C-alpha cells in the first residue's frame, strides 16, 4: 500500500474516532455506537454469498474453488440460523481469479462495519483472511510479490 493510502486509512480512523468521541452519549461505551444499518443481516450475508459465488466461478484452481464452496456453505448456514432462506445465486464471472479475490476481499471488508453481530463479523473476517491468502497464492503462482504491503484494502481508493 502506498503511504498516501495508509495515511488515508489512519486519518480516517482518527477523524472518525474523534467524531465519535464528540457525539458519545454517556451510556455509550468505548466500543462505539452500533452501526446504523437498515438492511437485515441475512441480506448482507447474501451479498457475501454472491461475491463468493463469483469467485468460485472465476477460479481455475480446484483447491481454491473448493475453499469458496466451503465459505458459501458456511454463509448459507449462518443465514439459516437467522431464520432466513439463503439466496440462490447462479454466478458467472468474467474476472480473472486475482481480480475476483480482490473484489471478494473488498466486499467482505465493506460488509464488516455494517454487521452488528460480532460473531458474524468474526465469520466474515476469517473468510476475508483466507481470501487474502488465496490472493497471495495466485500472486505466487504468477511470480509476483505475494505480500507487497502492510495493509490490504482493495476497496479503498488509491
Amino acid at each position, binding site marked *: 500500500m502506498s503511504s498516501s493510502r495508509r495515511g488515508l486509512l489512519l486519518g480516517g480512523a482518527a477523524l472518525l474516532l474523534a467524531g*465519535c468521541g464528540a457525539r458519545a452519549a454517556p451510556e455509550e461505551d468505548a466500543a462505539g455506537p452500533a452501526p446504523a444499518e437498515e438492511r437485515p443481516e441475512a441480506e448482507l450475508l447474501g451479498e457475501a454469498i454472491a461475491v463468493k459465488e463469483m469467485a468460485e466461478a472465476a477460479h481455475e484452481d480446484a483447491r481454491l474453488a473448493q475453499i469458496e464452496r466451503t465459505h458459501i456453505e458456511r454463509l448459507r448456514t449462518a443465514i439459516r440460523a437467522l431464520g432466513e432462506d439463503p439466496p440462490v445465486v447462479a454466478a458467472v464471472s468474467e474476472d480473472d481469479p486475482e481480480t475476483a479475490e480482490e473484489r471478494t476481499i473488498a466486499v467482505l471488508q465493506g460488509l464488516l462495519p455494517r454487521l452488528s453481530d460480532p460473531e458474524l463479523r468474526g465469520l466474515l473476517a476469517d473468510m476475508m*483472511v483466507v481470501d487474502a491468502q488465496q490472493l497471495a497464492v495466485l500472486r505466487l503462482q504468477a511470480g509476483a510479490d505475494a505480500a507487497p504491503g502492510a495493509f490490504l484494502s482493495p476497496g479503498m481508493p488509491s
Partner: protein
Amino acid sequence: MTSLSRREALLLAAAAPLAAAGSAHAAQASFPSLLARAHQLELATAVAYESTAGSGIPGDLAAAFARHERDQATAVQQALEALGARTLDEPESTADVAALVPGLPAAGATADERVRYLVTVEHSALDVHRSVLGATHHAAVLRTVASVMAAAGTHLAVLRDRLGDPPAATL
C-alpha cells in the same frame, strides 16, 4: 525493568484482555485493552521476523514483513491514541516475544521450525485482531483492523508456501 519482571508484565498484560473477552459485555468494555494487545502483538511479530525465527525465510523477505508489522503497529497505535487509550509494554527482544507467544525455536532449530513459529506468531496477532473486530463498532477501526488482517493473510500464505502447506479454508 529487569528481564524477568518485564516478561511477567508482558504475560500479565497479555492475559487480562483475553480473560475479559469471555463475555460479550466484557469484550465490549475491554475494546481499548484488546486494541492495545493487538498493538503489542504486531510489535512482537516484527521482533520475531527480525530475530532468529526470521532467519527461516530470506533476509529481504523477513525485513519487509518486519516493516509491515511495524507499520501496522503504528496504525493501531494511532487508533489507540484517538481513543485516549495507552499502549502496553513494547516487546523488544526475543525473550519478550517468547513471553507473549510460547514456542520460540531453539538456536539449532530447522528453517521449517522457525517458519512454523512465525506462523504461530502471525496467528496470535490475528486472534487478537479478530477479538477487536468483535468488540467494537467503530467503522474506521474495523476497516483498519480488517486491512491489517488481510495483509497478515498474505504473510501466512507466503509462510505456508515455504513450508509446502496448501492454502487452508479456515484459519
